[in-house]
């Protein structure tokens, strides 16, 4: 068993246990919110999903810088693996947010009243374009270089989306502001534990996604060896 595999197993186990504890806290420990009722419990998975999405795009941004500095393949792999997780979790945040919006705002997607909804859609489209760019380019080195630059520039949309609810202050609630969180102690504990659990889940998925990309590289390498041998 190699080091990656041991880490993978360990991270799987820790993430699994933490997720079970998180579900216990969300459904059995955290009290029912007085105004919104049970639907408020969506918040405990909605915000951490958005956090993982934003954090994943930040890692793509850092990996892009690292790739441009050193030109090492591993940073390209980390960059696109993290962007993939970022898109998945941002989509989850959008969907869970919509299920919260319907009973709370009486609309699935009130984009005219809430600028963040439009900005998060643009954010997702920007990162879809990241994968389209990668798919169009054939040369591996060019693909990695262009994707690194794109990943750095694309990250500008992340703080814009994050700060939009503070700048415009329309419908979307701000959880952390100068006046505190507005959460009771058990709610805050549940929320912070969910944030930690999702962060752990991110690193678990990243490790497996990076390992998958390495396997693709190894298979390509073996194919080249086999077929070049045949020609020679």
């Amino acid at each position: 068993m190699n080091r990656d595999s041991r880490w993978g197993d360990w991270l799987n186990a820790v993430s699994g246990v933490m997720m079970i504890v998180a579900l216990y806290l969300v459904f059995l420990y955290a009290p029912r919110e007085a105004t919104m009722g049970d639907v408020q419990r969506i918040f405990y998975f909605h915000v951490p999903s958005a956090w993982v999405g934003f954090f994943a795009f930040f890692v793509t941004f850092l990996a892009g810088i690292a790739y441009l500095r050193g030109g090492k393949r591993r940073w390209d792999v980390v960059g696109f693996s993290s962007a993939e997780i970022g898109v998945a979790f941002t989509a989850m945040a959008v969907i869970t947010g919509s299920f919260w919006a319907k009973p709370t705002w009486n609309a699935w997607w009130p984009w005219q009243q809430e600028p963040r909804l439009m900005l998060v859609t643009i954010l997702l489209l920007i990162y879809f374009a990241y994968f389209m760019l990668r798919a169009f380019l054939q040369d591996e080195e060019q693909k990695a270089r262009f994707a690194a630059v794109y990943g750095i520039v694309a990250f500008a949309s992340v703080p814009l989306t994050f700060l939009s609810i503070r700048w415009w202050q329309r419908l979307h609630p701000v959880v952390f502001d100068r006046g505190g969180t507005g959460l009771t102690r058990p709610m805050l504990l549940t929320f912070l534990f969910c944030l930690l659990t999702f962060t752990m889940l991110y690193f678990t998925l990243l490790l497996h996604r990076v390992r998958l990309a390495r396997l693709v590289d190894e298979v390509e390498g073996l194919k080249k060896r086999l077929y070049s041998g045949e020609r020679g």
Partner: protein
Amino acid sequence: MSYLFAAYAVFWALTFVFVFGIASRQKKLEKEMEALRRALERKKQQES
């Protein structure tokens, strides 16, 4: 309550699709790699 259930159901469905997608691609690639290694071994033996 139905919105709460739907939100968590969609979350878990997407998570499982993502995780099992990675796992099944990993398994497929591991099998392919094994087959390629065997093919390379055979080739080496034939050449020697």
